[in-house]
């Protein structure tokens, strides 16, 4: 995302940056339930929304927070919720609903260690596969990551833009380190921020079909209260929005919901790469780990090891093509992550056997240090 | 309700939508004047002249299938 960096500079936590980014993106509704290490997002929203006429609500649990977020969005108000592992599990039910009913909204998960209550105050990246497949049934999903407070601000804006454009829930995965580290954030001038808002139907209410087949597969859902009296359901439905048992209609609609993301993956996927041109080994890193990975690349280069870095900023859809392209050139991918190799699985799929994929895992709540990554690189080159 | 049939003339016109009626018998059982009957699986307005247009059949029909229009 291109944001003008001439704005004002503030010191803030990643969680605060997330809330600020949401408001800059036009978010005017937040429903949440407290959980470490995400609560500062809810707290910041509760403080900042009323002043701009926005709405905050602390719900009775995450099931309710997700439901309220979707309900608010259907009235045309950009909506968000934030949580961490155990709450992310509870939200899965209605994340699936938002996928099926195609309701734009943003779900932030500040990852902590799991499974279960796990490590409330310590970081992990254990929910990256849950973000993809946490809710039942075939669906596609967009999930973003961020490595700093600055990037959290920008990625939150992007999350809203993608949600509104593709009419889908978008997940933003932070981790405890990103959420709780206070650092400098350049807040761009509001007029320099690109904002996308969902389209309005062009046809009259009489001709309106909320879930009709479109070229892009993206539906146009009218805001409740604007004269288009349609039906929204989590049951398989046809273009009218009413439940159907017609097998052809069922298949058509589910394929469209998946296609609208998969066919547009090139417009969604994003990554940074550095020093990959002549690299012999690629470090694939995301979230807070990518900061260590960047240092590791620099350290490797100093020692004459040709290392490069690939840092996805969008992890779902996954950048298989980019990985494949690099696999033609390098021998090895090193994938440091704070889990037992969840994204390394995808990298393995991407390389199609053309390069080796080596995992570096840490699940003890400690961050992965640059030296550890360098050590791993040395083992493989 | 395009297949409505005027089934009675006075003092009220009772119409039954045969394709929506599920023959549950509620209207029959609670008609105070015993106007309605289910015969061979069909709801019939057997004694239209006895109808007092109390509207109870219409109010309690779960299927939007019977209407009573006062003359």
């Amino acid at each position, binding site marked *: 995302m291109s944001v003008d960096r001439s704005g004002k500079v503030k010191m803030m936590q990643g969680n605060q940056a997330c809330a600020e980014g949401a408001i800059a993106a036009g978010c005017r509704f937040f429903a949440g339930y407290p959980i470490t290490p995400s609560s500062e997002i809810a707290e910041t929203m509760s403080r900042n929304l009323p002043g701009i006429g926005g709405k905050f609500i602390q719900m009775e649990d995450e099931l309710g927070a997700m439901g*309220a977020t979707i309900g608010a969005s259907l*009235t045309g108000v950009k909506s968000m919720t934030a949580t961490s592992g155990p709450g992310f599990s509870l939200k899965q039910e209605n994340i699936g609903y938002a996928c099926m009913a195609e309701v734009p909204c943003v779900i932030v998960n500040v990852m902590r260690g799991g499974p279960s209550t796990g490590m409330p105050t310590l970081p992990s990246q254990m929910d990256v596969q849950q973000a993809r497949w946490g809710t039942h049934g075939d669906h596609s999903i967009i999930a973003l990551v961020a490595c700093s407070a600055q990037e959290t601000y920008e990625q939150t804006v992007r999350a809203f833009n993608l949600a509104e454009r593709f009419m889908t829930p978008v997940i933003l995965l932070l981790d405890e380190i990103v959420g709780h580290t206070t650092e400098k954030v350049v807040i761009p001038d509001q007029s320099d921020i690109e904002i996308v808002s969902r389209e309005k139907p062009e046809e009259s209410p009489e001709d309106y079909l909320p879930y009709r087949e479109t070229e892009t597969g993206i539906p146009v859902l009218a805001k409740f209260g604007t004269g288009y*009296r349609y*039906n929204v359901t*989590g049951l398989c439905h046809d273009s009218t929005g*009413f439940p159907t048992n017609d097998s052809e209609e069922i298949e058509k609609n589910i394929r469209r919901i998946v296609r609208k993301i998969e066919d547009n993956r090139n417009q969604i996927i994003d990554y940074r790469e550095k020093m990959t041109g002549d690299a012999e080994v690629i470090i694939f890193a995301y979230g807070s780990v990518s900061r260590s990975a960047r240092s590791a690349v620099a350290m490797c280069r100093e020692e004459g090891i040709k290392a490069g870095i690939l840092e996805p900023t969008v992890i779902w859809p996954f950048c298989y093509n980019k990985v494949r392209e690099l696999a033609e050139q390098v021998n090895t991918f090193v994938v440091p992550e704070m889990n037992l190799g969840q994204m390394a699985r995808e990298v393995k799929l991407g390389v199609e056997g053309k390069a080796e994929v080596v995992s570096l895992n840490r699940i003890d709540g400690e961050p992965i240090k640059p030296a550890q990554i360098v050590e791993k690189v040395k083992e493989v080159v | 309700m395009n297949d409505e049939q005027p089934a009675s003339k006075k003092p009220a016109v009772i119409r039954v939508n045969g394709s*929506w009626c599920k023959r549950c018998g*509620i209207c029959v059982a609670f008609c105070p004047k015993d106007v309605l009957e289910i015969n061979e699986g069909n709801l019939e307005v057997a004694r239209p002249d006895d109808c007092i247009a109390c509207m109870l059949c219409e109010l309690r029909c*779960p299927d939007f299938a019977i209407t009573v229009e006062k003359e």
Partner: protein
Amino acid sequence: MFNYLKFIRTRNFPHIWCPGCGDGIILKALIRAIDGLDISRDEAVMVSGIGCSSRTPGYVDINTLHTTHGRALPFATGVKHASPDLNVIVVTGDGDATAIGGNHYIHAARRNINLTVLLYNNYIYGMTGGQCSPTTPRGDRASTAPYGNIEPPFNTAGLAISAGASFVARADVYNVKRCEKMIRQALEKDGFSLVEILTPCPTAYGRRNRMANPVKLMEWLRDNTVPVQKWEKLSPEEREGKVRVGVLADTEKPEFTAEYRKLIERVQGE
């Protein structure tokens, strides 16, 4: 004759409910109640959970939102809080509202958010084939209580009152005019307004409890519901096995979206 046609989505008829299911009777009472009030169809939203009762929105020509099992109230809370000008009606079943959605139920009532909630109480899980619900009376049979239910039922209306709802009534579909009147009162009330409506499920409940014929269930409602005024005069013995119907609570309390509006004004004024 009441003209329901302008309120219903005729293309979805005949509806899916079984012969003699009371849900259709409630739908009609609701439509008449709405018609008597100045409610714009474009600005009305109906939200439901999952169950036979929760299929109601599909038949009403307003903005309709059929959600997940038990979650109608959170979705409705989001709709109402984000856009308080919308008129929000919630339709839910006894299982939907008080089992899987029990937590949302008490909290929505506690917030006293301006929602009109119609809780169709048929004493059973209808849609899934007759399993026990939190309102199944002791001793009654269900597919998961083949030897008779040993658990005591919830007093669903009482639960809403103690949680803080400003309007709570209990109605039944036999006394359908009274039911319509209570729905109208609930629609008019600012605040969390619940109408628990006793409704026959001949298929999943009646069949197992010697009332397979819908007429039997209607007769049961006729013979066992007691209006509040009369209830006061009954002895404890006479109340045994009877159900009190009528307006059970009607109080003035701060309403959530109005309080939030004040909060916005206060913050903006600072």
